């Protein structure tokens, strides 16, 4: 008798030093369904998928494909079984083109010569059919995160995979792109592809998934049909308690100007135009200002210019009354600028350092942590790390001596946030602080941002997430093609109006 299941993972257990990442987890994916996998950071979602994809070997449990037990030793085995995956952190070769990345490993050849034209035709056909717009000749390092993801999806489609795994696919997309992705996923499922959709965004799961399996702290909680459940029920299953979706905050009481950016212009690394064009804005004590916009409209470069990672072409930055335009990064940091970076792996952490060494990354040179002779004061570092770990609930396998690389994404982010907030900054620059995090962690981070505001700090939030943009800040500035095109009040504006500004369909003359 044929089973209705394309893939079954039965009683999977996978352990890491000090942590059981998957404890007896069962997941059954029906043919042609969209199955969501929901869970907090460190709940074991990514580990479970890595097991399915052959990146890890489970200690216990079996995997069945169409009812037959299979042994997946590495991603090649998974590929042969028609399993494809878009990872949370993309696996692309930066200096190759989109097309090269898509066909890599399955290049069509004739007499040993590449037949790229055939490949290009197939890729373009797929791209058109599913509305996955990419420029096949652009280098990965030059394109936006959104296009990188579309490249990853095309990679799976190009290989005619039947079982598609999406690991947190919407974390980096704009609202419009998310809608498109949902549509794509529905189409794929209609054609008989089975989709595993890893997410912690309840609204998306409710919108697109047929069924949803929930994990919590490495354990399997249950599987429900989305048609017969509610977001509240799902979130309660995920975190084990009820979660408040709305950010509670008192009205802002803005004080004096802390950050004053005048006519900032920053060059682009991708094209010859400037990425940031003549941007002026002010952030006051006791308010959260959000820069909203679709990915790739100059937000990243603006933050680089502001924090000193890239030089300015033109403009002036004043922090708490001091001109910092030409100051080095260290001076800016010491003067009270904290920066939660967009890419925690690239900038935020030294992944092969321990958690404690990462927690003092902005302060190691202070007398508390370095003696006059230049020796590190390890005792103080440990004490300080223990304090932050406790205060911000940073979870890890071995506490302060855990290597940062082995921690889950959410806990890595918590560590960065702990470090940046505990520095007691004048200005907190938070760039996509909740990227790829779950409801519980997002709630925590939003609370921290509001708490910083209430403590009289200036907070500059850069976000791509519409909910965050609407909920957290006191003022919204919309950035489009390197310019501020509108200032909105989150209390009076609507998502539709915001969307119009973000898409460049509407603009005001703004002098923030």
């Amino acid at each position, binding site marked *: 008798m044929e089973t209705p299941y394309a893939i079954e993972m039965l009683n999977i257990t996978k352990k890491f030093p000090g942590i059981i990442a998957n404890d007896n987890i069962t997941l059954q994916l029906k043919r042609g369904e969209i199955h969501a996998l929901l869970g907090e950071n460190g709940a074991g979602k990514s580990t479970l998928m890595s097991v399915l994809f052959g990146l890890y070997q489970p200690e216990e449990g079996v995997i069945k494909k169409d009812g037959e037990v299979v042994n997946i030793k590495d991603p090649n085995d998974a590929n042969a079984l028609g399993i494809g995956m878009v990872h949370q952190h993309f696996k692309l070769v930066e200096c190759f083109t989109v097309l090269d990345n898509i066909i890599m490993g399955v290049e069509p050849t004739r007499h040993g010569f590449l037949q790229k034209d055939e490949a290009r035709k197939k890729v373009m056909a797929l791209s058109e059919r599913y509305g996955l717009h990419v420029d096949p000749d652009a280098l990965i390092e030059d394109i936006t995160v959104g296009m990188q993801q579309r490249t990853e999806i095309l990679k799976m489609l190009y290989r005619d995979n039947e079982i598609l795994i999406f690991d947190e696919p919407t974390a980096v997309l704009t609202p419009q792109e998310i809608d498109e992705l949902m549509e794509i996923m529905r189409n794929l499922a209609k054609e008989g592809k089975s989709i595993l959709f890893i997410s912690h965004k309840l609204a998306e799961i409710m919108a697109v998934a047929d069924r949803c399996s929930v994990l919590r702290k490495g354990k399997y909680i249950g599987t429900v049909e989305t048609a017969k459940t509610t977001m509240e029920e799902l979130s309660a299953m995920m975190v084990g308690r009820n979660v408040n979706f709305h950010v509670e905050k008192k009205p802002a009481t803005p004080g004096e100007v802390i950050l004053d950016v005048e006519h900032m212009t920053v060059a682009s690394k991708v094209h010859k135009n400037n990425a940031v064009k003549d941007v002026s804005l002010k952030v006051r004590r006791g308010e959260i200002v959000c820069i909203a916009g679709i990915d790739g409209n100059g937000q990243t470069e603006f933050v680089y210019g502001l924090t000193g990672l890239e030089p300015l072409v033109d403009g002036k930055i004043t922090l708490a009354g001091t001109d910092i335009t030409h100051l080095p990064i260290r001076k800016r940091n010491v003067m009270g600028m904290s920066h939660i970076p967009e890419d925690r792996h690239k900038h935020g952490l*030294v992944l092969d350092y321990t958690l404690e060494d990462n927690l003092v990354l902005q302060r190691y040179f202070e007398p508390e942590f370095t003696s006059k002779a230049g020796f590190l004061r390890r005792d103080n570092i440990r004490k300080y790390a223990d304090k932050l770990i406790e205060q911000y609930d940073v979870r890890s396998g071995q506490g302060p001596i855990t290597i940062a690389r082995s921690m889950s994404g959410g806990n890595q982010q918590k560590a960065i946030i702990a470090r940046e907030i505990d520095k007691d900054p004048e200005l907190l620059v938070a760039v996509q602080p909740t990227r790829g995090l779950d409801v519980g962690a997002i709630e925590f981070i939003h609370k921290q941002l509001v708490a910083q505001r209430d403590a009289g700090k200036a907070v500059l939030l850069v976000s791509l997430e519409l909910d965050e943009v609407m909920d957290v800040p006191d003022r919204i500035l919309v950035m489009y093609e390197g310019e501020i095109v509108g200032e909105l009040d989150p209390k009076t504006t609507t998502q539709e109006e915001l969307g119009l500004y973000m898409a460049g369909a509407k603009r005001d003359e703004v002098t923030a």
Partner: protein
Amino acid sequence: MKKSILKNDGVQSLIASLVCIVLGMLIGYIVLLFINPTGAGEAITTVIKNFLTYSKTTSKLKYFGNTLVKTAPLLMCSLAILFAYKVGLFNIGAAGQYCAGVALSLYAALAWHWNWVLCLLFAVLGGAALGAIVGLLKSYCNVNEVISGIMLNWITLYLTNMLLTRVKEGTSPYTLGVDKYAASSLIPALGLGKLFNNNKYVTIAIPLAVIIAVVVMVVLDKTKFGYELKATGNNKNAAKYCGMAEKRNIILTLIISGGLAAMGAAMLYLTGYEQWNCSTSSVPGMGFNGIAAAFLGGLHPVGTILSSFFIQHITAGGAYVDKTMYCAQISDLISAIIIYLCGFVLFMKYAMNRGIARREEKAAAKVKEREAADDGKGGDQ
């Protein structure tokens, strides 16, 4: 659950290194068998025995001393490699920096009769300057340090030949003997030579190199400077993000690395043990052997002390192989094979870790079955 001693990083490095050594000797033995089966066993034991081949204790001591004399420069070179490696740089230019050390220390000694400390510092300066060139190119022009290092190796070699031709013996291609012509530039022995049957080449250079290994370890592990350097090596972007002067760190690292390699050269040539051949046409192997010594030593300063000695030990041992049975190059070949295998330490460690992990998982599963209810502390230190 008791923590296995095998999971200790130091123990792992040690075992991996030993496995590599044994494998290297095995392959060396097989090569010898192919060339001439009758003498293979004896030849390989000769290589391993080195100075122990001598029957008299006095000779043993004397040649043990000679091995140590050449261990000091090798140790310095491997420290140079290790130091740069911790910052994510592969200082293959150590060989050229070593050359610069030879040139400047010998010239300062033979031409100017400087005090040994000054000669040594002069050499360090030269190596550091070469390192600085590589570092500047790396951080400001993004030139790969391997490329610029290798090219500088050759430039330095011929500059060395040119410079030292001015202080060479009349007819032979060799430089004048430091012991005869510049006795004031010799590194003092402070009685150390007496311990090795009056080996006049055994000087305080040997303990000095060991002390420097310890200093390197302390700097890397315990200081703010080391913290910054390693952070820069692991993640340049994060180092920049938190305000470290990552360009300065890269340059500084290569300066220090170059200085270490050059100091190694001075430590050998200022003993008078060797004279420089002014028609040398290849970069001395010391800097390259330093790479093998650094990896064999598990990239740990104390480990490199042992590995440097071992590599020098077998290199010297190679010279005793019976030349009637094997051609003259056999000694270099055998030590080269063993040194080559020494480069596999990291791979061995990786293989070992996988093996241990597998075994532990099985054991843990059994324990779990037995004490299903008991929730012990699984991951404590």
